């Protein structure tokens, strides 16, 4: 196991982004725009809910029978001439890739977007080993040039304004100072990347779907960078999480129809590329199958469905917290609702604040194209965290006290009476001080003279109210 990760404090990490109101609003609006595009696409398909149900059923079936389908996939991929590698964790994955590169004396890698390689920290690992890695997805490249990490799994640079991209490109690509025209900036990146593509010796891609029946893999991009990235070099390394499998080719349509609509509100991604073995006898296709904790998730009845995830990012676009706090506030490869479910499976302590970075609104659950019960899983994580004593002691004690109070009705009534009385008579500055987190930005409710039960006792029942005895 790698060393313990630093502990993420989501509220603290979110503070700067969310309190920068213009920026937070801009970010929220950008993602809400994507969410509404998704809604229009979903509305245009009468069979939308049927597709979601089918996708979920296919994924659950696949995950339940994963060992069989993985073996079927390996046999068929091998038959097509691909080389299949198995990696138990991130370290093994990185070693396998490095070994392949070293064996071929490769110095220059062109990469298309892959959340799996982000998860494994492949870029850093290769750079440490003296290998140049160029991300060719535009958003990923922007983030890479700025020395940042993606803040969204589909829209890696969604947190960066075009003016800021202009500054980055001015510094690294020599565009005119102050240039902020997206067309010009994109052209600059295109020209810059074209050279890298031509120099690249190995192409590394992720995998959106692996098909057990055919042994083929499918990569979906909007920029065509994956296609160019693997068409020029002789060697293609495809890194694939073991949960990316689907049983049959005919299942693919269910997912491609859901993926692009859910992700960006497009009817289909611009490029849906199928790779069945290497392209000719001089070329190589390596598929690295990575577990890295997925089997552990598969063992859990509570969290297993998280493996349904097709990484569309719809839960991020819809999440009212994510849209306002920004992806970096999660300090995780995968942010947002699904990231907050996956984070603690890797390191519970480090990610203990993430299941609480959620108002339990359930929008993610309803938007998810593969029907992961995300907000129920986030709630379930809270129970696990408390069971492992990872909730702050003051909160645990507070809940213990509340539970006790709720089991002693007379004391609860008395406490309520005292709280209302205090609120009525104490000066505002005392009840709304800085120690009262509620009241820093909000008024407390105006306390009524009597509780409902006191009113009821007086008006509707024979008994006298507790608090007037």
């Amino acid at each position, binding site marked *: 196991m790698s060393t313990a990760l630093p502990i993420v404090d989501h*509220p603290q990490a*979110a*503070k700067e982004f*969310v*309190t920068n*109101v213009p920026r937070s609003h801009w970010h*929220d609006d950008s993602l*809400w725009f994507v969410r509404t595009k998704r*809604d229009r696409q*979903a509305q245009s398909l009468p069979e939308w809910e049927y597709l979601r149900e089918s996708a979920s059923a296919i994924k659950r079936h696949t995950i339940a029978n994963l060992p069989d389908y993985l073996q079927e996939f390996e046999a068929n991929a091998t038959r097509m001439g691909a080389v299949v590698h198995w990696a138990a964790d991130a370290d093994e994955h990185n070693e396998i890739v490095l070994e392949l590169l070293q064996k071929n004396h490769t110095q220059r890698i062109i990469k298309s977007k892959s959340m799996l390689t982000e998860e494994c920290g492949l870029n850093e690992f290769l750079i440490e080993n003296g290998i140049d890695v160029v991300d060719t997805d535009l958003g990923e490249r922007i983030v890479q040039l700025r020395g940042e990490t993606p803040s969204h799994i589909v829209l890696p640079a969604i947190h960066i304004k075009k003016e800021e991209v202009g500054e980055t490109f001015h510094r690294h690509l020599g565009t005119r100072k102050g240039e902020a025209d997206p067309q010009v900036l994109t052209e600059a990146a295109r020209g810059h990347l074209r050279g890298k593509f031509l120099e690249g010796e190995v192409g590394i891609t992720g995998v959106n779907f692996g098909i057990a029946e055919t042994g083929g893999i499918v990569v979906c991009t909007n920029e065509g960078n994956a296609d160019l990235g693997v068409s020029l070099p002789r060697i293609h390394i495809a890194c694939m999480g073991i949960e990316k499998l689907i049983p049959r080719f005919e299942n693919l349509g269910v997912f491609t129809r859901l993926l692009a609509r859910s992700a960006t509100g497009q009817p289909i991604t611009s490029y849906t590329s199928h790779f069945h073995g290497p392209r000719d006898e001089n070329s190589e296709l390596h598929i690295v199958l990575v577990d890295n904790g997925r089997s552990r998730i598969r063992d859990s009845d509570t969290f297993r469905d998280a493996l349904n995830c097709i990484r569309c990012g719809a839960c991020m676009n819809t999440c*009212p*917290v994510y849209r*306002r*706090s920004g992806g970096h506030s999660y300090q995780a490869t995968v942010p947002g609702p699904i990231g907050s479910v996956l984070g603690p499976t890797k390191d519970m302590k480090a990610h203990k604040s993430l299941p*609480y*970075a959620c*108002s339990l*609104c*359930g*929008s993610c659950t*309803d*938007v998810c194209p593969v029907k992961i019960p995300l907000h129920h899983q986030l*709630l379930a*994580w*809270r*129970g696990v*965290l*408390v*069971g492992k004593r990872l*909730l702050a002691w003051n*909160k*645990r004690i507070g*809940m*213990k006290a*509340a*539970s006790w*109070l709720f*089991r002693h*009705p007379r004391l*609860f009534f008395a406490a*309520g009476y005292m709280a*209302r009385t205090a609120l009525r008579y104490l000066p505002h500055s005392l009840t709304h001080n800085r120690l009262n*987190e*509620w*009241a820093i*930005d*909000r*008024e*407390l*409710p*105006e306390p*009524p003279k*009597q509780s*409902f*039960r006191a*009113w*009821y006792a007086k008006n*509707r*029942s024979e*008994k006298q109210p507790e608090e007037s005895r």
Partner: protein
Amino acid sequence: MNVALFVPCYIDQFFPDVAIATLELLESQGVNVSFPENQTCCGQPMANTGCTADAAPVARKFVEIFSGYDAVVCPSGSCTSMIRNHYGDYFAADDERFLKLRDNTFELCEFLVDQLGVRQIEGRFPHRVSIHSSCHGLRELRLAGSSEQMIPRENKLRLLVESLDGVEIMPITRQDECCGFGGTFAVTERETSVAMGLDRVQDHVGSGSEVMIAGDMSCLMHMQGLIRRRDMPMRVMHVAEVLAGRALPQKKAVSAGY
């Protein structure tokens, strides 16, 4: 029908008129309502924090108190969902007493529309209003269709509000975005919670509405707190108050009060 009124703890203590309005509304529909006086809370605050061991005894006590009625009615979608969708964790799968209670616990609008078949409330509310769809009522009880799902459903709160004379429902831009209350979330993630709440209030203000109506007082308590601190031009009312014929509160951002 012998119905028990389940009044969420914070409504009992801070918004008694919401409970009185609920009681009056049910009685005006000919329902025989009792208020079990030993009730306190359903245990949701503990459960949502993950403190299931602390929620369990509260849940057991709740079932003890509320068993034996034909139905339990609650003016909160969130607390109703706690019983219906989350109490299963605390009881055996074949616990008859619990299962009967679970299947007969209803949110107020749901009870009126689905159980009593009410389609029309006699009354007048000559105001421009806007509706806040509280999340648990929407996505856990399905009291209306959510904007994410492509499943048409009747909006029970809207149906009842719309039946009042003179009411005009103003459209908001994000029909069912969360207000950011979220229980302890409001405190642990204060900055984000406040940002979410302010955006909701602004949406309602922008619609030209005079009063925001919701089925959950917890969302309204949070937004009311934001409105009052900033003196924003919006009032809030629980749907029970509107349907029971309460007038628009005089003071802005104060529920009808008692």
